Each structure stands twice: as structure tokens, then as C-alpha cells.
């Protein structure tokens, strides 16, 4: 296992909320893809059924933090300063994927964009833009 993959494993294993969501993530080279398998407790609308908007937001925020644990390793978890989530489609009762793009890492703050999709990446379900306070900064 590469050093980056080890850092990711440690991050995912240490954060209890990652287990609550049931989120996983894998590295292919320096590209990380996070997956959120469908689970009944993630539903926000039982009639459709659809994932809770907060779950999609939370999954994308954790994707950003997981990506930062790889690209900006620190002994402590980085802190979220703000996030802006845009919802494009309902999250269906199926697996969701997300990828984070670290746009800028400054001395104190990182800017990260995240995209979430289900059947096809060309049909995103949601976007997130966030600023994160780098731990140890």
C-alpha cells in the first residue's frame, strides 16, 4: 500500500461518522473516488425515495476532508470553515460517488470543489465548494 493510501485508510478508520454514513474511498494513483453505498437510514424522502439532502452534503464534505488527509497530511483532522452545496438532481436509492478537486492549498486555508453523481458522472446529483482550515497551520 502506498503512503497516500495508508493515510486515507487511517483517516477513514479513525472518524466514527464515516462508519455511520457507510462511506468508503479508494485511491487510483493520486485520484480518490469516494463511494456511498445506499442504506435505508440515509433516506430523507420515503415517498420517492431519495437520499436526505444533508446526507449528500455530508458525504461531499467528508470526501473533501478525506482528499485533504491525502494531499495535506496532518496529525489532526482539518476543520470546515464554510461549504456551499448545490443540488441538481434527487439522490436516488442507489450508490453515490464523489470526487474532490483541491483547487488551492494556502498556508492556512484550502479551497476544495466536490462533485457527486450516481449512474453517470455527466449527470451530477450535487456539487460542493468548501473552505477548510488546515490543521497545524
Amino acid at each position, binding site marked *: 500500500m502506498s503512503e497516500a493510501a495508508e493515510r486515507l485508510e487511517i483517516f477513514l478508520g*479513525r*472518524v*466514527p*461518522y464515516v*462508519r*455511520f*454514513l457507510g462511506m468508503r474511498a479508494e485511491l487510483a494513483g493520486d485520484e480518490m473516488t469516494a463511494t456511498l453505498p445506499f442504506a*435505508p*437510514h*440515509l*433516506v*430523507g*424522502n*420515503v*415517498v*420517492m425515495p*431519495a*437520499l*436526505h*439532502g*444533508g*446526507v449528500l*452534503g*455530508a*458525504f461531499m*464534505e*467528508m470526501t473533501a476532508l478525506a482528499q485533504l488527509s491525502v494531499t495535506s497530511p496532518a496529525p*489532526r*483532522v482539518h*476543520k*470546515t*470553515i*464554510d*461549504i*456551499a*452545496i*448545490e*443540488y441538481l438532481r*434527487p439522490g436516488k436509492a442507489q450508490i453515490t460517488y464523489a470526487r474532490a478537486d483541491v483547487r488551492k492549498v494556502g498556508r492556512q486555508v484550502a479551497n476544495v470543489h466536490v462533485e457527486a453523481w450516481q449512474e453517470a458522472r455527466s449527470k451530477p446529483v450535487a456539487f460542493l465548494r468548501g473552505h477548510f482550515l488546515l490543521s497545524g497551520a
Partner: protein
Amino acid sequence: MSPEALREIARNMVETVPQASALGFKLRSIEPSRGSILTPWREDLVGDPDTGVIAGGVITALLDHACGLAIISMATDSRTPFSTATLDLRIDYMRAATPRADIIAEAHCYKLTRTIAFVRAHAYDADPADPIATAQAAFVLKRGPVA
């Protein structure tokens, strides 16, 4: 709609929606244009294992849900009940939530058109004047039964 009927819909929305019940949400109050929800701290919801601070994702879901509740409260002024879908949600995290403390979210739907609701919300633990996070959101309304 009577206050009792509204409270029943609100309780249903806060305590039986699967994600809300998985997080342990409890209805605090509902009145026209405003709603409030409480969520307890739980070890399995921790986002920072070094401090025990609850994950931002829990606050995101709580604020989103409180916003939806504030919108549903406007159903008193409407013949047709509706469900809501989040269009966008912006959250500022002012400080870490206190470990082991309950978190309260209060939301206010300050403008409702036929199709869109505009909502502000904040989350705090001990003191409403010392917020953990604030939110600004827009929702699309879907006419029909409340989901």
C-alpha cells in the same frame, strides 16, 4: 390547518424520516414560518476523534431538516400541503460544537413564493447568541402530500 395538525405533521417529519430518526432528531417547536429541532451528541457521530466534536455532516443534515420544517410550517397558510427539495445550502461553521452537548437548530422561512422558499437557520448548543453554524438556503416546493 390547526396547530395540533401542524404539530403532528412536524413531529412526523422530524421523528420518522429515516435519516432524521437515525440521527435522533427531536421536534422542539413549530409555529408559522419557524421550526426548531434538537439532536443529541452521540459517539458514533463524531467527526474529530481527538476532541469528540460531532461531524459537520450531522449539523448539515440538522440545518437542512430544520429549514424544511420551517417551510412545512407555512402549510397553515396553504390548502395543499407540499414537500420540499433543497436547491442550495450554504453553511458557515463558526466554531466546534461542544462535545457531549445537545445541538439545537432554529430555522426561519422568511420568504415563500409559489415554487421557492428562502430560509435562514442557525445551530447552537448552550447559548443562541454563540452559534456553532449558520445556514442560508433555497428550496423548491413540490405540491402534493408531505413526504
